[in-house]
């Protein structure tokens, strides 16, 4: 039985020449778990929104979509509401009521069920999702992960045949994201709901999915089972290969031509076994990467917190307890740690936005702060005007203004989006614009709060190289992040924050090779063979050095 059948679907926004979707042909069977991946603006969201007529954007559409054999435009609103569930990206905005139980009941109320049915359905779903404990809470008291789980649950109460999810974990931290994706898989397995999901976290989704679709410029270019899909992506050298989990990249690089005949590993476990097999009966001559020269000691300290304590209110718990940290000149310092451990608060102390009630601080005044929400910086109608707005306030010399603006536009590749409205940009582009505005201040120290949140892998690489460039030019960067892979790749030193204080500060290689859970995928796959490989490149280099 087919849930969706898409024939020759093309779509373009009014007054725009480029088509967002180009001749998409697709059949999705009932109970299938389909993952759609692709760069941002490859047409993923547009395609997903076409599967739910209530959310389909206005524009010129050609081709047909059939839902359970009926043309989707002819499906009435009631059936469509209950049978096609759609989970939006940002949990904050999707919640419409004030209490958890009311949110769960919202869809059922719209459909006009009586109180007893609603009570039963709500109770059932609350139990399935483990919501019972916070059933009566206010929605504003929930964490981001709980909010997204609530969104999902409030759609599941309507018992949909198919769930469409558009990057549902983009705003979540890694632990909450894993929990959310596990729940999705459970729904698929236990209830048999068809799942169509678009995501950046491919490492977790590949082993779960039945089928992978890769989209590029509005077309579906790869449509295959996960194993074959990963091979096709890596062989074609498509940009998506960077988004694949590191073990797949290692496998492809090490096996070379042989990768075609051998099956791709789909989990860390499988890749560990593959590596063990490779090193069997061989002596490992080079078990570790030799460290670059240590020159930390010579660098001068630009900012320092000493035995600092902080809380937001007198009667509340301490958020920062006895924290000490030194930021050295010209380093890229990453701060990692779980949720609610005080990462963002610490950054606000460094930025001078909050003051500690005990302890000493030596701060620098030439600081710029890139907030988690880039939208908080946008004031104008177009990207160009937004940049000039900033230039005006810092450059008194009229003649130099254009020069300054052009400089920054070039540095961050903003040429193509100059005429667009800041709110119409994708997450990555918004991040770029915010970065441009902040960099115009020419800060000596740059504070970043989760800059990689909601970015696709392609843009992460770009951001990484922009940041490295700045560091090379002498800027000091302090970054708070959940993104372990990103920290391992680009930073000079990593600090772990736990329970409001800094537990350890080390170079990324030492830091991550000592941990077994809080570390990169590349390290987890190779730690039984190599001593300190933390990035994909490390593992590949070591494999080559040892002649594997």
């Amino acid at each position, binding site marked *: 039985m087919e849930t969706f059948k898409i024939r020759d679907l093309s779509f373009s926004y009014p007054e725009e020449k480029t088509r967002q979707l180009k001749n998409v042909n697709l059949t999705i069977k009932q109970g299938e778990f389909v993952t759609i991946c692709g760069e941002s603006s490859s047409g993923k969201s547009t395609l997903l929104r076409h599967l*739910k007529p*209530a*959310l389909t954007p206005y524009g010129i559409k050609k081709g047909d979509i059939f839902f359970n054999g009926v043309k989707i435009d002819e499906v009435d*609103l*009631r059936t469509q*509401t*209950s049978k096609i569930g*759609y989970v*939006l990206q*940002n949990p*904050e*905005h*999707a*919640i*419409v009521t004030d209490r958890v*139980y*009311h949110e769960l*009941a*919202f*869809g*059922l*109320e*719209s*459909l*006009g*069920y*009586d*109180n007893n049915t*609603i*009570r039963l359905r*709500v109770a059932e779903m609350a139990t399935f999702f483990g919501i019972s404990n916070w059933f*009566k809470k206010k929605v*504003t008291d929930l964490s981001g992960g709980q909010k997204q789980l609530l*969104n999902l649950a*409030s*759609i599941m109460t*309507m018992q949909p045949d198919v769930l469409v999810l558009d990057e549902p974990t983009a705003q979540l931290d890694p632990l909450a994201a894993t929990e959310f994706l596990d729940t999705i898989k459970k729904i698929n397995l236990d209830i048999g709901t068809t799942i169509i999901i678009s995501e950046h976290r491919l490492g977790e989704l590949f082993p779960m999915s039945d089928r992978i679709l890769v989209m590029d410029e509005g077309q579906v270019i790869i449509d295959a089972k996960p194993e074959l899909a990963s091979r096709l992506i890596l062989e074609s050298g498509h940009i998506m290969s960077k988004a694949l989990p590191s073990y797949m990249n290692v496998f492809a690089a090490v096996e070379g031509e042989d990768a075609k005949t051998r099956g791709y590993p789909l989990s860390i476990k499988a890749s560990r076994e593959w590596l063990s097999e490779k090193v069997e009966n061989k002596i490992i001559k080079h078990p570790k990467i030799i460290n670059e020269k240590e020159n930390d000691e010579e660098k001068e300290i630009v900012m320092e917190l000493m035995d600092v304590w902080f809380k937001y209110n007198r009667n509340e718990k301490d958020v920062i307890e006895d924290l000490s940290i030194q930021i050295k000149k010209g380093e890229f310092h990453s701060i990692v740690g779980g949720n609610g451990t005080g990462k963002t608060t610490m950054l*606000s102390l460094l*930025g001078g*936005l909050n003051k500690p009630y005990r302890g000493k601080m030596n701060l620098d005044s030439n*600081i*710029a*702060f*890139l*907030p988690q*929400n880039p*939208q*908080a*910086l*946008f*004031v104008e109608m177009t990207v160009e005007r937004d940049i000039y707005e*900033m230039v005006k*306030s810092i450059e008194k010399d009229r003649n130099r203004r254009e020069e300054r603006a052009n400089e920054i536009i070039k540095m961050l590749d903003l040429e193509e989006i100059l005429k667009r409205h800041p*709110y119409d940009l994708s997450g990555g582009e918004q991040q770029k614009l915010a970065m441009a*505005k*902040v960099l115009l*201040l020419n800060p000596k120290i740059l*504070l970043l709060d989760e800059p990689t949140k909601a970015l696709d892998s392609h843009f992460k690489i770009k951001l990484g190289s922009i940041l490295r460039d700045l560091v090379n030019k002498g800027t000091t960067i302090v970054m708070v992040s959940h993104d372990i892979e990103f920290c391992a790749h680009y930073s000079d030193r990593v600090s772990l924050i736990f329970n409001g204080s800094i537990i350890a500060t080390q170079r990324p290689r030492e830091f991550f090779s000592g941990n077994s859970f809080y570390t990169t995928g590349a390290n987890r796959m190779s730690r039984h063979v190599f001593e300190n490989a933390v990035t994909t490149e490390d593992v590949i280099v070591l494999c080559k050095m040892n002649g594997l």
Partner: protein
Amino acid sequence: MYKAQIKIISNAQRGIGRDFRTGNIYQRAKNGLKTLSIMLTWALENGVETADSMKARGYGLKGRTSFSIFRFDSRDQVLAASLGVLIIVFVYGISIGRFYFRIYPTIRWAEFSPYSLTFYLSIGIIFFLPTIIGILEDLKWKHLKLEI
């Protein structure tokens, strides 16, 4: 909700050196207005998404019901019925003039008689109902505790 957002925005603006707490009046007003304008755009933009979420869950379909987690059980029925009776007695008391109490400018009340006392009693019970229920609950707990 908006308060939290204003905090985020003003912190973000302070982060790039624009604070509505410093500078001369003109600058302060300008920066304050900017914060407000960002706030407004943001709220509107988010509103679009919230509307999407409501539409996706069928808001606007005919025959919407409303769900409440509170049930109306037998205890509630008994309480409602007795309240009803008390109110009727009390209103009747007023209507026949047997129930009169004035404290200003002089203190005067309808004379006490066994008959009018019923009305005073009824209003007394209505006034003290929450207290009575509370005391009863407490007694019940103490009693239960003794049994354990």
